[in-house]
């Protein structure tokens, strides 16, 4: 079974530039998550999708971050314009979406450095 795929693996941009990350979840997983992991901290949820609908985006800085999952499969996360404090690893995860044994599977992440 293929895992969660993310690209790119690494990205370096200057502040005020824009950047986009892509995630392809495990086939059949209805729920998709984007997390931000700052160095030395645990992952923090940015947005959660159930199929192509947003379940929770309360911690997404909507003035600069946006995410979509148009067809309920893969997803993109965009930052525009980037700030220095956005430097982090952006993790995508997916799960079946419910039930007692819901488990999230994580991608390799995209390491973003804003200079």
């Amino acid at each position: 079974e293929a895992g969660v795929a993310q690209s790119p693996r690494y990205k370096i941009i200057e502040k005020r530039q824009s950047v986009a990350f892509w995630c392809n979840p495990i086939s059949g997983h209805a729920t998709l998550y984007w997390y931000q992991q700052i160095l030395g901290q645990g992952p923090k949820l940015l947005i959660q999708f159930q199929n192509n609908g947003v379940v929770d985006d309360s911690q997404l800085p909507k003035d600069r971050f946006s995410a979509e999952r148009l067809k309920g499969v893969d997803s993109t996360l965009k930052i525009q314009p980037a700030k220095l404090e956005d430097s982090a690893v952006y993790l995508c995860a997916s799960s079946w979406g419910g039930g007692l044994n819901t488990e999230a599977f994580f991608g390799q992440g995209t390491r973003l450095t804003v200079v």
Partner: protein
Amino acid sequence: ELKVEQNPLFLSMQEGKNYTIYCNYSTTSDRLYWYRQDPGKSLESLFVLLSNGAVKQEGRLMASLDTKARLSTLHITAAVHDLSATYFCAVIRGGQFYFGTGTSLTVIP
């Protein structure tokens, strides 16, 4: 807001020794997870604990859950160098995962 706290944040231990990592959470939760993260890598699922009193073991790691105390433990037995990593606990509530701060474990030969 659901808070998840781990201690210690950093742990350096000698090979062959035993130690326990603690995970406290602030409100009721459906279930608790333990993940491992190697430097530069993603999170790897270790255990899913579904009910009060649940205990799971895999190799030198054993996880337990006390929902009444809102506490989970990850016990390391006879540590080996390969266990060096950062360990996260996470609780799920309303379909959303809340992660702890992580415990960075270094096993010294």
